[in-house]
């Protein structure tokens, strides 16, 4: 009855999900199931794990027996426990055990290296057990291109991680949970924006043009972060040419195969899990909130650069600030806003606050939530799985918080039409929404767009509102706006934007198995994505004269405009492939061949309208001013045929050949098609006779080698076609921007595939009864004919050089994964634990580039990618005399541009606290020389911006229903020279009007009393086009880090308890993400990951997450 209920419920969900509601499915009243008592006869049934528990009145009986292995040898030390209780024992040297257990309970026999076995105790007193050796590590099924293989049969470089490993992390995106789990799958996040996807890279630089791995979701290209993590069965990374050859055209950057869960055979299983938590700041947020000190430090820096101060506060104003310097809140006698006459005698607000802008603008606790539900099961000839996931989080803005939400739905149905034909449908739907208030881009990443950033001009001396409640905007004392009006636009709450993403993908598939060993698969996929966004700007008002409201003059706040944009993209994929396998004596053959084609079309519509009739309604119908329309469309197609042939002899010697003949519409007809073959071989050394003595320790050993070629078609859609774009320019005629047709960019006469040739050697081994496993690979990859800006042409050419197949690159690297799994008995219960680590590294060098003068402004032969050229700095001058003495020999002026432009003679002088720059080439002047490799001036290679030694470390253990997992992830070394707009690194040295100065900032600034400071003599803008903005060895940062990425603790309730509520499994857990970071980065006000993508670090901050939830199966 119970089962019928669950089946009914699942059927209801299933039918609802396929939009064909069948009322009959609900004809099983729930009262039939709920409250129904189980009878003992059920317990004696075939239920494998006796989940429907027992009546408490059962009597204990003594059970004994012997545990043997498959050869009949007894196994000592096997843990024998009663499931769901703390009762247990272990076998003796003869493999014997004896235990008193309640009748009807389930015994669990477990021992490392063997598959655990469960036995239900009925009324027998002897239970002998034979444990099968656990060869899962090698028998594991690994997903490969257009098929699967056993791990032992693999000859290419393939890593796989199971969905179980991923789903215990309460994160929204799959890329977040993949970070650090697979060696040389490099995942980087440049921002903590809700919904942010990670950048994926496999094995480092494949091309100087960049490019990312091909992600296939159930065989169809897609966005990895639009997948529900809980739907994932496994993620497989194909790293070398051999493994990815069947995807030749797009596999140069590696391939990631995401396989979703299949429908489970048997009765319906319902899984539900949830997670609730909050995000909080990851970096230090202890800032100076004293109006006095913030003003003082900024003003000092600006004065030393320009001869003027930022606040323009007089001594009298400073006196007022000083009186309030300790007032954390407004003291009635000393208000933060006073009214004083301005220069013209008119009454004006004057601000003397100690306002904490950071905590006013940003929320310290941002709630997150997630729910996940799936139903899976089968009936006679039909298997089904439906799942849904919803999650959301509130963003970092406090006043009108930004919000992110996403939904995933999936249905998978397989029907066996007859013995040889199965048809299936696999459909998924994704939707996400991000809405925010404020500027069109609250966190500008555009290098010099400072005019829209909260990092500037939120002086604690200023406050957000005047006493009469009006918003502040300008002090009227200096000419700057308060925080570029960021607070005003937030408080106003009518300027806002929204981004929507929808994706629908459906695959129809037929699998034909006409004769044994032969299998033909045909599928067709249609996908559609709609990306839409709008941004609405409304004019914002402020007040600086009591009783007078004025419009902000800033363009961003003085605009009444609605922008809308819709991208409608569609794709169709056809796959047709077949495989045939056969064993002839000790020879095994498998052949696979197929055909694939894909076409994608992209279409954009955009519109902007000015002056809307309402501030609250946002529709283009309400536009009364100017309209601007935009469009855009493109399409591309791919087509290819592929094959793979496997052969092995006695399971010892393996050989594989595969390849693909591929064409893309992105190249001209004559250059369109390419053939990309690969070969690989493997030798299972441990199967050899001579290996037997070693087998006790080293259980298996396999050596692999592969060689192959892949192509990269990842160039601009119409790179080979000369075309003329259109647009608008900033030249008005009669109040209209002129529309223009641009001249075509030059196109190289021939453009074709970049090819990457990979040599890979690998080793897989297991030790100590398979407790320790090791997998290692090393590779050399030569990328040939990279599409790049060719030889530098003289400027008179008048255009950037067209891309040609003109450069070669060599990347070398390795990756290692080690795992240790074991268990021991602790307090009579098994303590299982595992330690796993991954480590990877690579370096890349240019091996061909037409740059005979070795100009450093372009690539050159022998160049290591990521090299940073910089000057050598030798600390601060101790005295001005020392500085002047040095200045007489070495002219630093070309670098000291800020000092040279200082307002007074004293400030212009090279002096104590200034940085000493070494004249490496000894010519008496600091310069870039001819900017060639032979004459780099006074620069040398001081570091490298590529990540080295990326790693992950996973520790997990479980005992007595408790489980614990700890995950570390990091980068061994990576250099970053702080960008000139990295305000939270340079503070007043970048722009002397910083909002958020570190609490200890004064200690970092040089002064005669503080000669060992981190920063030099306090000159504003010194990090902008001056000695601190050019790379040097003194301020170069190592942003390598180790992060405690995740810590989670769970407890699974004993099944005897949960089964009373018909719950098969109930786990409660709590989890923390990004708990702690160790790094050599000199500041803790920036996160190393934040500057890896955007070197200014002015991105949406990354976050720490704390959460808890339940996982429920019934």
């Amino acid at each position, binding site marked *: 009855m119970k089962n019928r209920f669950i089946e009914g419920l699942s059927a209801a969900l299933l039918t609802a999900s396929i939009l064909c509601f069948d009322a009959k499915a609900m004809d099983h009243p729930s009262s039939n199931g709920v409250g129904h008592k189980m009878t003992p006869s059920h317990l004696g049934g075939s239920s494998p794990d006796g989940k429907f528990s027992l009546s408490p009145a059962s009597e204990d009986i003594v059970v004994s027996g012997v545990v043997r292995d498959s050869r009949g040898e007894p196994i000592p030390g096997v843990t024998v426990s009663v499931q769901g209780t703390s009762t247990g024992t272990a076998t003796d040297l003869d493999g014997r055990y004896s235990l008193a257990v309640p009748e009807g309970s389930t015994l669990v026999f477990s021992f490392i290296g063997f598959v655990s076995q469960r036995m239900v105790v009925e009324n027998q007193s002897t239970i002998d057990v034979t444990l099968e050796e656990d060869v899962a590590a090698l028998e594991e099924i690994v997903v490969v291109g257009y098929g699967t293989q056993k791990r032992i049969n693999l000859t290419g470089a393939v890593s796989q991680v199971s969905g179980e490993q991923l789903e215990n992390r309460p994160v929204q995106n799959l890329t977040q949970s993949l970070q650090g789990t697979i060696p040389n799958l490099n995942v980087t996040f440049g921002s903590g924006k809700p919904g942010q996807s990670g950048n994926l890279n496999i094995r480092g630089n494949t091309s100087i043009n960049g490019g990312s791995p091909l992600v296939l979701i159930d065989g169809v290209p897609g966005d990895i972060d639009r997948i529900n993590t809980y739907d994932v069965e496994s993620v497989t990374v194909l790293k070398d040419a051999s493994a990815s050859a069947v995807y030749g055209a797009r596999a140069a950057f590696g391939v990631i195969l995401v396989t979703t869960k299949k429908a489970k055979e048997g009765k319906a299983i319902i899984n539900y899990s949830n997670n609730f938590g909050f995000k909080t700041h990851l970096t230090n947020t202890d800032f100076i909130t004293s109006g006095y000190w913030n003003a003082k430090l900024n003003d000092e820096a600006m004065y030393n650069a*320009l*001869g*003027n101060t930022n606040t323009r506060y007089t*001594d009298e104003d400073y006196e007022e600030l000083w009186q309030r310097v300790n007032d954390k809140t407004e003291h009635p006698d000393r208000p933060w806003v006073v009214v004083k006459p301005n*220069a013209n005698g008119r009454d004006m607000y004057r601000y003397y606050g100690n306002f904490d802008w950071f905590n006013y603008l940003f929320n310290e606790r941002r709630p997150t939530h997630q729910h996940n539900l799936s139903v899976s099961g089968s009936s006679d000839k039909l298997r089904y799985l439906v799942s849904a996931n919803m999650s959301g989080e509130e963003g970092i803005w406090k006043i009108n918080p930004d919000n992110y939400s996403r939904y995933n739905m999936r249905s998978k149905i397989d029907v066996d039409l007859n013995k040889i034909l199965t048809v299936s449908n696999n459909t998924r739907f994704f939707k996400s929404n991000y809405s925010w208030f404020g500027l069109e881009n609250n966190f500008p990443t555009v290098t010099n767009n400072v005019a829209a950033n909260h990092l500037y001009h939120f002086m604690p001396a200023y406050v957000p509102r005047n006493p009469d409640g009006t918003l502040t905007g300008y002090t009227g004392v200096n*000419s700057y706006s308060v925080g570029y009006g960021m607070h005003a636009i937030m408080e106003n709450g009518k300027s806002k934007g929204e981004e929507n993403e929808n994706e629908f993908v459906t695959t129809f598939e037929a699998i034909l198995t006409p004769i044994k060993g032969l299998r033909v698969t045909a599928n067709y996929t249609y996908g559609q994505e709609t990306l839409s966004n709008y941004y609405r700007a409304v004019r914002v008002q402020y007040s600086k004269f009591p009783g007078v409201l004025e419009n902000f*003059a*800033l363009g961003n706040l*003085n605009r009444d405009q609605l922008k809308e944009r819709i991208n409608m993209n569609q794709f169709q994929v056809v796959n*047709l492939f*077949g495989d045939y396998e056969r064993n002839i004596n000790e020879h095994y053959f498998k052949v696979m061949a*197929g*055909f694939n084609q894909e*076409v994608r079309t992209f279409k954009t519509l955009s519109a902007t309208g*000015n002056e809307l009739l309402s501030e609250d309604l946002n529709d283009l119908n309400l536009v009364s001013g*100017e309209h601007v329309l935009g469009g*855009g469309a*493109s399409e*591309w197609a791919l*087509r*290819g045929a592929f094959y793979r042939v496997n052969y092995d002899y006695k399971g010892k010697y393996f050989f594989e050949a595969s390849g693909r003949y591929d*064409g893309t519409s992105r190249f001209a007809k004559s250059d369109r*098609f390419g053939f990309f073959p690969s070969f690989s071989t493997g030798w299972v050394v441990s199967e050899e006779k001579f290996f037997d003595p070693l087998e006790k320790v080293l259980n298996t050993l396999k050596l692999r080698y592969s060689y192959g070629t892949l192509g990269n078609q990842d160039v601009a*859609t*119409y790179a080979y*076609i*000369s*075309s*003329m*774009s259109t647009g608008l*320019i*900033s*030249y*008005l005629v*009669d*109040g209209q*921007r002129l529309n223009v*047709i641009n*001249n*075509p960019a*030059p196109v*190289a006469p021939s453009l074709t595939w970049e090819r990457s040739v990979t040599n890979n050697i690998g080793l897989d081994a297991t030790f100590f009864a398979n407790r320790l496993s090791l997998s290692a690979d090393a590779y050399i990859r030569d990328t040939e004919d990279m599409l790049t800006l*060719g030889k*530098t*042409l003289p*400027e*008179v050419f*008048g*255009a950037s*050089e*067209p891309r040609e197949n003109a450069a070669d690159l060599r990347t070398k690297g390795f990756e290692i994964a080690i795992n240790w799994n074991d268990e021991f008995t602790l307090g009579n219960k098994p303590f299982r634990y595992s330690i796993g680590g991954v480590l990877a590294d690579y370096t890349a060098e240019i091996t061909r580039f037409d740059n005979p*003068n070795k*100009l450093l*402004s372009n690539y050159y032969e022998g160049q290591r990618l990521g090299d940073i050229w910089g000057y050598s700095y030798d600390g601060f001058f101790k005295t001005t005399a020392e500085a002047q003495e040095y200045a007489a020999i070495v002219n630093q*002026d070309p670098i000291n541009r800020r000092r040279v432009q200082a307002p*007074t003679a004293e400030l212009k002088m090279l002096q104590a606290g200034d940085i000493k720059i070494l004249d490496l080439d000894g010519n008496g002047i600091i*310069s*870039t020389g*001819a900017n060639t490799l032979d*004459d780099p001036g006074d620069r040398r290679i001081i570091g490298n911006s590529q990540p080295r030694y990326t790693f992950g470390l996973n520790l997990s253990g479980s005992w007595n229903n408790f489980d614990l997992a700890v995950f570390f992830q990091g980068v061994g070394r990576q250099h970053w020279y702080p960008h000139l707009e990295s305000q939270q690194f340079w503070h007043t040295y970048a722009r002397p009007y910083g909002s958020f100065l570190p609490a200890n900032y004064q200690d970092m600034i040089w002064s005669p009393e503080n000669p060992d400071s981190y920063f030099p003599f306090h000159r504003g803008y010194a990090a902008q086009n001056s000695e601190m903005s050019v790379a040097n060895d003194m301020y170069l940062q190592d942003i390598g880090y180790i992060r405690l990425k995740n810590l989670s603790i769970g407890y699974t309730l004993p099944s005897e308890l949960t089964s009373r509520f018909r719950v098969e499994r109930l786990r409660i857990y709590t989890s923390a993400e990004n708990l702690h970071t160790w790094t050599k980065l000199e500041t803790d006000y920036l996160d190393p990951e934040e500057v890896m993508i955007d070197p200014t670090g002015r991105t949406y901050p990354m976050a720490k997450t704390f959460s808890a939830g339940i996982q429920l199966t019934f």
Partner: protein
Amino acid sequence: MKLLKNTIAVLTILSVMSCNDDFMERYPLSQLSPENSFTSETELQAYTNGFYSVFPAALDVFYHNPLQADDDARTTVPDELRGSRTVPTTGGGWNWSELRRINFFLDHSHRFENEQIRAQYDALARFFRAYFYYEKVQRFGDVPWYDTVIEMDDEENLLRARDSREFVMERIAEDLDYAIEHLDAGKSVYRVTKWTALALKSRVFLFEGTFRKYHGIPGWEQMLDLSIAASDELISSGGYGIYTSSPETAYHELFVLKDADPTEMILARQYDASVPFVHSVNFYTLSVSYGRPGVLRQVVQSYLNADGTRFTDHPEYETMQWFEETQNRDPRLSQTIRTPGYKRIGENSVSLPDFAASITGYQYTKFVLAPAYDQGNCDNDMPIFRYAEILLNYAEAKAERGTIDQSDIDRSIKLLRDRVGMPSLDMDYANANPDPFLEDQYVNVSGANKGLILEIRRERRVELIREGHRWHDLLRWREGSLLTREFHGMYFPGVGTYDIDRDGTIDLHIYEGERPASVPGRQYISIGEVVFEHGAAGGRIVVNPSVVKEWDENKDYLYPIPTQERLLNPNLQQNPGWVDGI
């Protein structure tokens, strides 16, 4: 096995079929193809619209350094004025993308069949090619001439040596003559017309004529003749005039009009807040962040008295304070900088010079709009070609050529004087009494018209200040060494309090040492922060006192060719005096 074979066969057939169908042929859907372009006039117009972006933007007109040269000073001194220019690796003005855009058009426009219409657009392209090459010659002297798009394998053209400036100037003349002949003869403030081409021709050949004359390059006479002819044609056409209203306001009004005046503006760059397309002249003039521009004292002294006599003839002119020196002067002075009684547009209260925002104390009012525009939302149009310049070009070219008479002055400079109610320039008087103040500045002027030429230069400086002409004027007159002089601001006789506008209240306090207690509405200047000639004893404000300024007569009139270009093209010779180590 048979089935397997069949399957493979089918797959093979399918994949082979794929090689020869249309599935893989995908062409751009939202971009035009050059192969079938320029077949409609709309396309010709849209393509040639792209040329307009080369015209200077507002910032290039009112702020660009070194173009303002010694007209105003900032807290920073550009390399050109210091003599600290170095040979750049790349860039440095050696940019040729605009020429490619133009030549591509001229190479392909023949696809349009109507020759008459095509000629108009060809004329526009050639106007812009002349404009492009004029800027290149101004900067580099000799430059290679290209009248067609260079292909990437065209080594001969890519590695060409420079053509002589004489050769290039002849080509410019041809382009401009074609443009003058074929461009629309109607008037338009924002579009290039025949009249714009004439104005450019007037400008280019005045530059080239005087440059050659003062740098000893032959052929200057013909160049000046070309300029004179162009100016004369423009003047004689009668299509343009001088904007007038009240002499006390007309000059100032002209530069704060929201839409350029079509009488005087031959070509202007349009700004419009509703687009939005705006500039920040108020912010750049009035804030402390953009170098605090201030007009130099020497410029203020150049303005004549209101009766036409010379201010600098006054025995005490060097020690006059701001109030005294601004009385009874050429009305253009009080319409260019803040003078006593100045009120911002729409304001009732008087605004004094803001020493915090103006390094010399002489603070611009030219172009500056009402306070509502202080935050970067100004939208007054900016002059590119103004009729007044043509009149000045005409007078100067004729004077330098030696063919001028009083009637030429009456049809040119007199119009500018009339606008502001100033007496006209008397040629004979000027030649008989060369102004020693000007003689001291322009040391290379000689000959019968010396006195007149000096006066024309005065007139040009006064009339065209802040419009981006001064730097090139100094180059063509070979007066670069003027830039090495010390730059001065207002005069004050030492520490103390001042009522600078004589309205009865103290508005400025110059102090030494500790700052006095603040009094609202009063400005404070600290001796030391602001350097005076005689320290606490006052004198003129010395701008950027510690900046060393040098001018190399043999090198600094031209810019260097970037090193990378010389590495890539060994045939490219460096300009004289520039050392790049190659």
